[in-house]
């Protein structure tokens, strides 16, 4: 099977938050038309990585190549064109609370295209139907459940038919059934629209149902990169602990424990 070309390539990315180093020389590829999952525990740097990939923050060092262009070096105005071809679903949906669901989804179309309002209305309904929210155009975000907010946010993210879709912890706060429904939707988007999808998550269930390509992060470094088979076959104990949901063992040395309590 031919390896699809990399639509996103990250090279030696180093990022800081103040003086603290978050990502320490991260490099990986995101294959076109496939679902890539960035896996990692809390504090691994995966959310920071996502923010850098969508250009919300600029790195200290390294390159982020999207379709061959280094977005870390581009000025803000040039990023606008790239952003029109990308969609992002933030963790809580990030719907604009002062607008209805329909107005939220229509916003990118209103701002970036010269389409007629009636056309935009139809496109809005199509997108909402795709995510299973047909008929909810008139609802305000406050009236929606968590799962529905994410779906509405997703409808907005795909309003402009993006080439690359980013998900920030899509299963966070969702019950297993709703989360599985969202996974189904992600797979449908890949199959029907040939979108490149990048999901940041720590949920194993989602990982195994959707991932084609995995990048596992731990404390700012890449532990493993490859397909699911390579991930499972990794001999790194941290990877195995993560996949087996094995907690880090607590203190077994009484002396060391006492010292840590007393503050020596």
């Amino acid at each position, binding site marked *: 099977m031919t390896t699809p070309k990399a639509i996103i390539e990250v090279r030696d990315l180093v990022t800081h938050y103040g003086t603290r180093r978050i990502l320490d020389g991260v490099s990986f590829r995101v294959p076109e038309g496939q679902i890539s999952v960035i896996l990692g525990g809390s504090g691994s740097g995966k959310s920071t990585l996502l*923010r850098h990939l*969508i*250009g*919300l923050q600029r790195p200290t060092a390294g390159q982020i190549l999207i379709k061959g262009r280094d977005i870390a070096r581009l000025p803000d105005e040039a*990023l*606008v*064109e790239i*952003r*029109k071809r*990308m969609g*992002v679903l*933030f*963790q*809580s949906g*990030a*719907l*604009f*609370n002062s607008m209805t669901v329909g107005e939220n989804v229509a*916003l*990118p179309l209103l*701002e*970036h295209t*010269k389409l007629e309002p009636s056309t935009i209305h139809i496109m809005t309904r199509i997108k909402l139907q795709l995510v299973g929210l047909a008929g909810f155009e008139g609802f305000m975000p406050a009236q929606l459940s968590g799962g529905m907010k994410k779906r509405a*946010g997703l409808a907005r993210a795909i309003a402009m038919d993006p080439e690359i879709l980013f998900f920030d912890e899509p299963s966070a706060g969702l019950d297993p059934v709703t989360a599985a429904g969202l996974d189904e939707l992600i797979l449908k988007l890949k199959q029907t629209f040939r979108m490149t999808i990048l999901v940041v998550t720590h949920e194993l269930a989602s990982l195994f149902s959707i991932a084609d390509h995995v990048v596992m992060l731990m404390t700012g470094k890449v532990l493993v990169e490859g397909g699911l088979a390579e991930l499972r076959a990794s001999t790194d104990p941290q990877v195995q602990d993560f996949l087996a949901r094995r907690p880090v063992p607590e203190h077994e040395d009484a002396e060391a424990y006492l010292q840590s309590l007393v503050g020596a």
Partner: protein
Amino acid sequence: MAELLARMGRRALQARGELAAAGNLLIRVAARLASAPFTAKGFRWPETFRQMVRIGVESLPIVFLIAGSVGMIVALQAATQLRRVGATIYVADLVGVSLTRELGPLMTAIIIAGRSGSAIAAELGTMKVSEEVDALVAMGLDPVEYLALPRILAMAIMLPCLTTLADVVGILGGVVVAWVSLGIPVGNYLEQTLKALMLKDLFSGLIKSGVFAVIIAGVGCYQGFQVEGGAEGVGRRTTASVVASIFLIIAADLVFTLIFYVLG
């Protein structure tokens, strides 16, 4: 003692940094304002009108109440002194000139800073915390153009209007006091007021309120965009925006008073 000075020094440096950043925001707003006639969305009149209603129309009751009360207070204080020299008709002059030149713009600005300035900071701060501002950026929109510009423009249009209305209502307060407590007929009072008022009094008052408007909305937007840390952060920055606005309003007023004094 040294510790106290060090703390004051640090605070001063921090304040200077914030002032520079806020100034930066205003420069970006000015740039957007200048390029607005050439962009598709222009001045975003629908959103600007909505803000004008919230800032201006909805503030009328409180502005009228306070302006009327202050007009009456000034008239009563003036009357007490002028009665001694039997020149109570000059109450009209005093109320008219002090309101149009000084009290009208200052008082209205402080009321609006507390009411609308804090609302702007709270609304934008809440949007920042729920990733709505990030969502705008990820969509290829500029938060300065989309959120800040309509609010600052609306404030710059509405505050001078509110100030003028406050002046009128304040003078009417003086009319009531003069008629009830001094027995001065309404017609005489108003004629005297008009004789005393010069066009430059009104103009200087309006110029001041234009500057105050930019301060209030600019500080509100700046503080809102700087929020981090959830509800507590929103509260902190909202308070800071009111305090900073009032301080800067009074500082600007001092500068204006000196300038107008020198120019005669």
